[in-house]
């Protein structure tokens, strides 16, 4: 009798614990930002895990990769299967751990890293950290990425249990929080964030004078770790500086990157210096005055990059290979559909406000 009572008590405790934990989990799912309509950049990192992981090229870096290169063009014109693991203000240690994370699933032929991130030597802002780190699946790479990224006011546990951070979002909940509680809709095309509108670059300010132009020790440490990791895995690392006119890219920074690329025997492409070759025209190829390229600009520089990947890295044309080709047919259809939707919306906007 006594044993039966003990058993019943244990069952009750277990049921109670399960109810509490399930409630907390559901609350957490409800309260976490979904990044579907606003600030869609927050959804980019997580989207990768839904992919077939058989990429020839992986891009890592900040907005200068996910807004400036189009994997659809690499496939359509060169048969190169690529993915952008980019996120807003992705810091270089985050790029490193995202690369580690990616290598848990696949080993690409080429990794392309955008060097602007070297300007930061310390964690910057929680909001940007969250957009990169929360989307990562749990692994030691994520643990280390969080540890390296925490600002003074952040706590590791808040990333383990995001409900601790988002519990006060209850008053901001919308229908989308319920609709996308467990499954969100895609916001990118293999990590590329599409924009078709045009805002010409003008009056871009010169860079302000800096007290010290040297990249910091931490930034260099992770640059070296990215290089070593790629080398150890037999991956060709290519450094790029996207053609964004702002934030300002200093000559002193350029010299350091050129010297590093030479020392490590890495290919470095500074698209700021390749405007003639790529055909970029900042009167028509940017949607925000020179910070990021629009679709037209992204397709131009990607087309040029594709040729380099074939010539320099020897990447093969995989068009015709199944199931990849079928998969890309679907992807290109979605890409084309969004392109048309955006052009229509833009035309409607222009018609309403000529």
């Amino acid at each position, binding site marked *: 009798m006594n044993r039966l009572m003990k058993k019943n008590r244990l069952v009750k405790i277990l049921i109670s614990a399960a109810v509490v934990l399930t409630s907390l989990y559901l609350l957490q799912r409800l309260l976490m930002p979904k990044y579907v309509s606003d600030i869609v950049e927050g959804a980019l990192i997580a989207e990768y895990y839904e992919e077939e992981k058989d990429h020839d090229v992986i891009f890592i870096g900040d*907005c200068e990769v996910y807004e400036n290169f189009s994997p659809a063009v690499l496939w359509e014109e060169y048969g190169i299967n690529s993915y952008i693991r980019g996120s*807003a203000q992705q810091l270089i240690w985050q790029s490193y751990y995202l690369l580690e994370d990616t290598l848990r699933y696949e080993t690409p032929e080429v990794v392309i890293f955008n060097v602007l991130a070297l300007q930061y030597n310390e*964690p910057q802002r*929680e*909001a940007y950290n969250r957009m990169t780190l929360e989307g990562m699946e749990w692994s030691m790479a994520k643990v280390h990425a969080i540890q390296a990224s925490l600002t003074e006011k952040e706590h590791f546990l808040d990333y383990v249990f995001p409900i601790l951070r988002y519990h006060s979002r209850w008053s901001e909940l919308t229908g989308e929080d319920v609709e996308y509680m467990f499954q969100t809709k895609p916001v990118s095309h293999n990590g590329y964030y599409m924009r078709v509108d045009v805002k010409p670059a003008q*009056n871009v300010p010169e860079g302000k*004078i800096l*007290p010290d132009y040297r990249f910091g020790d931490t930034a260099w440490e992770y640059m070296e770790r990215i290089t070593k990791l790629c080398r150890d895995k037999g991956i060709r690392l290519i450094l790029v500086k996207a053609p964004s006119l702002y934030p300002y890219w200093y000559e002193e920074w350029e010299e350091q990157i050129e010297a590093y690329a030479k020392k490590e025997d890495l290919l470095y492409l500074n698209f700021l210096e390749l405007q003639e070759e790529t055909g970029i025209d900042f009167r028509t190829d940017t949607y925000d005055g020179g*910070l990021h390229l629009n679709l037209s600009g992204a397709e131009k520089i990607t087309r040029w990059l594709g040729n380099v990947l074939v010539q320099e890295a020897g990447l093969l044309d995989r068009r015709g290979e199944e199931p990849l080709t079928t998969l890309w047919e679907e992807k290109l259809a979605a890409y084309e559909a969004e392109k048309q939707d955006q052009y229509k919306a833009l035309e409607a906007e222009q018609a309403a406000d000529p």
Partner: protein
Amino acid sequence: MKRLMMMLTITGLLFTAGCGNSEKTIQAASNPASGEEQEEAGDSDESGETPAAQTEKGYLFESEGVKISVDADVKPVIDRLGEADSYFEAASCAFEGLDKTYTYAGFRIETYPEKDKDLTACIILTDDSVSTPEGVCIGNSVEELKEAYGEASSEEPGMLVYEKEGMKLCFIVDGDEISSIEYRSSVLEAE
């Protein structure tokens, strides 16, 4: 059942313990400036204006009789200074609102969005045609700087920093000579 209800209640209490207002959430921080640091500066008043947007703060720059403070609403300043020689705006990555740059002869003002206002992020002196109200300009020596301002609050490689009321006045030096002067908000520093 009673025990389950009690556990749920306790969990709920723990869950809401220390609960701040909803503005602390990341989603609500729809621009990089709306973080806890701003909240620590004080709560919004009934008009919705932050104290930072209403008052002058720390060291001020002055041009043609117009006092310019970091973290203050830039609109009345621009209205009084007149149209800038050059204007540039840039959307912050992944955030709503625009960072704006107004360039005038000898200096430029950069802003950050805060609710429906643009607050001054920094004022950068760009040549020796203007000076600080304390009489220091680009090209002055470090000795002249210290005569005017005293010892710096802190020194970094290539820069002397004077902190006052939560803002920073930074003198960037090249050797013994001042090469740039910046009035900086601390709000935008690492959160």
